[in-house]
């Protein structure tokens, strides 16, 4: 119980800055490592680049994206004739922003009604929790929301979502049956009947190596299209920010199966780094719609590349 008291939502006035502060705290480790390295002064030499490489790799940026970023930094150093170590930080921020900016495309749900969003991801990524937060996000925009309890596999996943719905006064469509596609099909129909703005469809977590489960989720998508042509309008892949380079293979596999249109990066609080976004941007770019930095209801926000880079690198605005 104290969990909820402890994580009381920030007050309205400081809401935005509070969130940014949390993002910064979450990503602070990388930033402080970097500051430590760059504020020490000295010359721009191979040793410095190697240390920079180390920091990027330990932030899950991955080898490929790290090479790309460092090449960009080196280019800037050469072209702009940078000599101060402190300037490296700015160059890196530039390079990172260039890489991540294309991913910052907010999710617009006004074009369709109901706007059907299907969530997918591996086990434990935070799909069900994200749905609750997304529901809150859309509600705060004055939209009506309906949840579909499509995780019919995990014990008590349905109860978890219904609990969420009850706490936040959102309708949840659930069935006793074991068929995710049927539940979501019903939910879309219910949304049409009730004139709902946004439908959020949960699915069971699945590892991408489970071929039959990947086939099943393809079927779920096809069935949604039967309930409402051109739905789902958005397929969100939920990624745990603690995930390492496997996030890339998750993105590839789910995209191949479902044509993923957006990413949600969860659990960026804690000591997670989130550098894997850069790896994804390099290898398999898909828009990052939301990032989550805490357990509170308001802690899932649209992804803004500039804020993210600033927080990751510990740059003061």
């Amino acid at each position, binding site marked *: *119980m104290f*969990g909820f008291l402890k994580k009381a939502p920030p007050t309205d006035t400081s809401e935005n800055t509070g969130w940014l502060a949390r993002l910064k705290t979450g990503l602070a480790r990388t930033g402080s490592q970097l500051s430590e390295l760059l504020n020490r002064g000295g010359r721009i030499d191979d040793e410095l680049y190697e240390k920079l490489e180390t920091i990027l790799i330990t932030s899950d940026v991955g080898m490929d994206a790290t090479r790309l970023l460092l090449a960009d930094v080196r280019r800037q150093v050469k072209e702009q004739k940078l000599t101060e170590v402190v300037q490296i930080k700015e160059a890196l921020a530039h390079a990172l922003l260039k890489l991540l900016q294309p991913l910052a495309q907010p999710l617009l749900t006004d074009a369709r009604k109901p706007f059907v969003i299907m969530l997918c991801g591996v*086990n434990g990524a935070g799909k069900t929790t994200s749905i609750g937060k997304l529901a809150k996000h859309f509600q705060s925009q004055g939209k009506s929301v309906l949840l579909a309890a499509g995780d019919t596999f995990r014990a008590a996943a349905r109860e978890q979502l219904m609990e969420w719905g009850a706490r936040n006064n959102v309708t949840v469509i659930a069935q006793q049956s074991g068929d995710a596609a049927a539940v979501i099909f019903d939910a879309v129909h219910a949304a049409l009947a009730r004139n709902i703005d946004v439908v959020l469809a949960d699915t069971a977590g699945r590892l991408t190596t489970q071929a039959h489960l990947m086939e099943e989720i393809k079927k779920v998508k096809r069935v949604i299209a039967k309930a409402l042509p051109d739905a789902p309008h958005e397929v969100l892949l939920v990624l745990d920010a603690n995930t390492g380079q496997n996030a890339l293979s998750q993105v590839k596999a789910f995209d191949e199966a479902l044509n993923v249109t957006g990413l949600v990066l969860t659990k960026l609080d804690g*000591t997670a780094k989130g550098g894997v976004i850069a790896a994804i941007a390099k290898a398999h770019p898909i828009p990052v719609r939301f990032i989550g930095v805490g357990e509170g209801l308001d802690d899932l926000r649209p992804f803004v590349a500039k804020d993210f880079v600033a927080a990751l690198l510990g740059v003061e605005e």
Partner: protein
Amino acid sequence: MLDNLTQRLSGIVKNLRGQARLTEDNIQDSLREVRLALLEADVALSVVKEFTAQVKQAALGEEVIGSLSPGQALIGVVNRELTKLMGEHNDALNLAAVPPAVILMAGLQGAGKTTTSGKLAKLLREQNKKKVLLVSCDVYRPAAIEQLRTLAQQIEVDFFPSDITQKPQDIALAALDFARKHHHEVLIVDTAGRLAVDAAMMEEIKQLHAALKPIETLFVVDAMTGQDAVNTAKAFGDTLPLTGVILTKLDGDARGGAALSVRHVTGKPIKFVGVSEKMNGLEAFHPDRMAQRVLGMGDVLSLIEEAQRGVDHVEAEKLAKKMQSGKGFDLNDFKMQIVQMKKMGGMTALMDKLPAQLSQAAAGAKVDDRQINRTEGIINSMTAFERSHPEQIKASRKRRIAAGAGVQVMHVNQLLNQFEQTQKMMKMFSSKGGMAKMMRGMKGMMPGMGR
């Protein structure tokens, strides 16, 4: 699992072949490859650095010389050092306490604590014949308690009910009391997922630990975890006197580098690995086998162990006897093989355990659990007479069987052909049947594998 790393390391060896000996120069290149491979496998940088240094030192020593090729020598060194890093041997759970032996589960959100608690309860009940009680202290995540209750019901293990208005510590102590009074030998305490930086939550589990005095405190970690595994493991290790680690979701395609990092940082053994969504998907962790798997030697030992667990020994003995006599192997036995294979988690699960090269070859053969199900269906559509006298199945019977199983006559023919081949194979077995031979012969014997 660690296939990619395996392939990568195999590649390195190819590069090294044809060179007389390892020199400081060419080992430098190879070590850089090893370093990259490990980093891409999400092994923490600090661990990678230490590891490559060890390999270098060992490889430049005299072990490289001898009758081995440089490639073999390097594989040997990497294998040895990898095994060393992962902990030399498997550590079993320590349950030597005045009952109930308390097991406390800890970890990040979404690592798989609740599922693993259920799997562990099932394993202790079935393999160690323990009377187990499950309790959830997760009063935060909606329906977390409900989840564990459902799992307990599913695996038929006792569950101590709790609800979210209670304090975790009160729940745990009440469960402990209950376990004592009802003579449970093991109490598994599931806890809420928590971040290492959440001071209040870390304090909570510290107090939970102090109150319960568990004999085993297990850190549950997702095999897909990235570089941060080191920091998380360190924080949990600093807060709690961990006794072991459970690595989950190893059946995904994550390369599992986190295993190395966590092991290195906490110094605690990895006791189990989660390898399937099913409740029997928890296996003992074998560091030596893991290292061998990294190197492409596969995990044949694990496979055999699993086979022994899943196979009904009485039935297996009957089969062995029939094999010894070389005759009387009929479609009933064929079906029994299918049933037992299903118990082991189906073809796909078995294939995962084979060495990388082998399972790739098998993937080419299109192993399909569905086809195995179809085979079973066809046999089910036969009469008892037909099953024991397959040679009597002629055109008319075939048509009836096909209609009964909802397949084409062609499929019945395929099955009969396969059966004949298997029967021939059976006759080839000499007087000593034995599980080992069965396993070796498996590839040919598997119904549903032939095309």
